[in-house]
């Protein structure tokens, strides 16, 4: 199953020709692993493509699940809002929850797990206490994990609701405090708009929503959601393709957030993968003198993003994945901290692997 045929199916579902059972097997498994099954299902459904009954079961199941998750996230937003309204702090929704509740095309058919929110740093203590009073509790009990999140990363450790089992990630900045770039989280909050029907919940402006998604992708070490994220970005950008002013604003905003290079990288990738009509002038403007280096990085991502249900990508992709993994940590922390953290994690993994209790894995 190559990436190009999966992307073709996503971009042009109406062009789907008769596929063999083996093709369907590979499409479904690959799309599921890339976390794109819900979106694929939705697009094939909207394009009225006739699908044989066996693969249709998987597609309709994913479509049903995404509809259900969208109901759940709306309810979850109500619950979060009810718990945090009294704090009188702005709570900005990010990523999947924001796409769905703001009615973005990027949310249609999208599957997701956690709700991510951004709050002002000074309000973290109050927010954590209000959430605990509302039934959320800490998931990571190990002292090292707690310190990792609170001191070095940009969020509270994830909190899980004791009854609903839902997870909320509370961020107070966009990148770790130890990271090299310093996006302006306060500006994201300042430019957000209230989510109708809620007291504290807000949605970022479109430029920030897009830049946040790009920033996330460019700093993420694991690429198994990369195609899904690029598809999100493609959908978000396409809402504005007719507006030249939008592209200028996006460029200004990227520079304001100290994220010109990551945004340039993602613009190159989304253009290459999804044929998004991105103006070349914007890419050149943001890449600036780093253009050659960013192009090399884009080629690395191109080699690394190989959706593959067997989990056995070619050596070249593995090498690219490893480089991106190392780079992501490099961007996140100073070298000494990085070595400490990775060796600590390796030890945890080694000791965990010898346990026998079932692990509960939820795709994020």
């Amino acid at each position: 199953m190559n990436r190009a045929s999966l992307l073709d199916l996503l971009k042009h579902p109406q062009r789907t020709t008769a596929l063999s059972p083996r093709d369907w097997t590979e499409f479904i498994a690959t799309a599921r692993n890339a976390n794109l099954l819900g979106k694929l299902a939705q697009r094939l459904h909207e394009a009225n493509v006739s699908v044989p009954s066996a693969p249709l079961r998987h597609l309709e199941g994913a479509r049903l699940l995404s509809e259900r998750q969208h109901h759940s996230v709306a309810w979850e937003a109500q619950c979060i809002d009810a718990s945090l309204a009294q704090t009188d702090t702005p709570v900005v929704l990010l990523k999947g929850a924001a796409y769905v509740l703001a009615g973005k095309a990027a949310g249609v058919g999208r599957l997701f797990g956690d709700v991510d929110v951004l709050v002002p740093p000074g309000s973290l203590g109050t927010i954590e206490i209000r959430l605990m009073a509302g039934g959320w509790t800490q998931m990571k009990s190990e002292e090292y994990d707690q310190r990792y999140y609170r001191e070095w990363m940009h969020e509270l450790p994830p909190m899980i609701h004791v009854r609903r089992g839902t997870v909320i990630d509370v961020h107070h900045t966009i990148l770790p405090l130890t990271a090299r770039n310093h996006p302006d989280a306060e500006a994201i909050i300042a430019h957000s708009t209230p989510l109708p029907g809620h007291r504290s919940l807000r949605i970022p402006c479109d430029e920030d929503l897009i830049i946040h998604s790009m920033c996330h992708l460019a700093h993420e070490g694991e690429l198994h959601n990369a195609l899904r994220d690029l598809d999100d970005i493609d959908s978000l950008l396409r809402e504005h393709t007719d507006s030249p002013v939008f592209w200028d604003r996006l460029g200004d905003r990227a520079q304001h957030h100290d994220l010109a290079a990551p945004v340039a990288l993602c613009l190159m990738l989304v253009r290459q993968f999804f044929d998004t009509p991105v103006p070349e002038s914007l890419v050149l403007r943001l890449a600036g003198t780093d253009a050659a280096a960013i192009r090399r990085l884009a080629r690395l991502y191109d080699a690394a993003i190989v959706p593959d249900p067997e989990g056995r990508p070619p050596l070249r992709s593995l090498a690219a994945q490893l480089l991106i993994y190392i780079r992501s940590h490099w961007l996140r922390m100073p070298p000494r901290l990085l070595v400490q953290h990775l060796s600590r994690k390796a030890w945890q993994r080694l000791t965990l692997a010898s346990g026998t209790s079932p692990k509960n894995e939820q795709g994020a």
Partner: protein
Amino acid sequence: MLDTTLRIAPFVVRVRSPFASVLEHLEFFYRDCEKPRDAFVDFDIRLLPGRGAHRFWRPQARFLVDDQNPFLPLPVNQAAPMFEWGLNWTIASRSLGFVVFHAAVLEKNGNAIILPGFPGAGKSTLCAALCHLRGWRLLSDELAILDPVSGMLIANPRPISLKNTSIDIVGQFPGARIGKRYLDTRKGTVAHAAPKLDAIEHASEPARPRWLIFPQFAPREGRQVSRVSHAEAFALIGEQSFNQERMGEIGFRALCALLGNVDCHQIEYGSTSDALELVAQVTQQD
């Protein structure tokens, strides 16, 4: 290296594994299943050796489905039961439009009994007894698969999972075929009983839910049967559901419709023969 594709109704499952125990397990329990060529594969399962340095002194088996790794590894001698547990997990957690809950399902004359599975209730022993001693057709020993559109129960005939003392009891039933015993699993000693041929041959025929029976093995209480209200049954089934919550409104309506069509009873019994009589009394079937 084993690489086989089996029709385990209503799914097509590909299994790959280097372990001889997995091959033996499939040959013993799935010998009557069709091996389709060029069919759509629902679940691509691999059981592979564990990774890491400890493989040299404590070899483990890993379960992968479509390259996802939902469990921690188990000791390598449990690779075959791990296939069964992993396949159960896969069917229950994959979103395929079915409501899946933990229960045994058996059919006679098109009508089905549902036996929800609370631990220690004796569900699997009773299920095996109904198949081997009373001629009920096995739809499933673990997973009730409800199609919300038709309201029918879908068959997934697989080995009946037996624990500890129930292994010897079922082993004495006429026609019972018991596989290898696995000692010291998290559930104690585990073995499986093969489904009868009729269960495989008629696997494509769904069954109409007619009776919901909550079995309760209670050696000192004597035998008795009591009605269970639909509201109580709904709550109990909800506890046993793997994905009703994820199925949302469709799942809720499907369970309501199911309860509208079944008689709900609880039976308490101290022996298999008592249980069989009580089931006959409730269902009016021999």
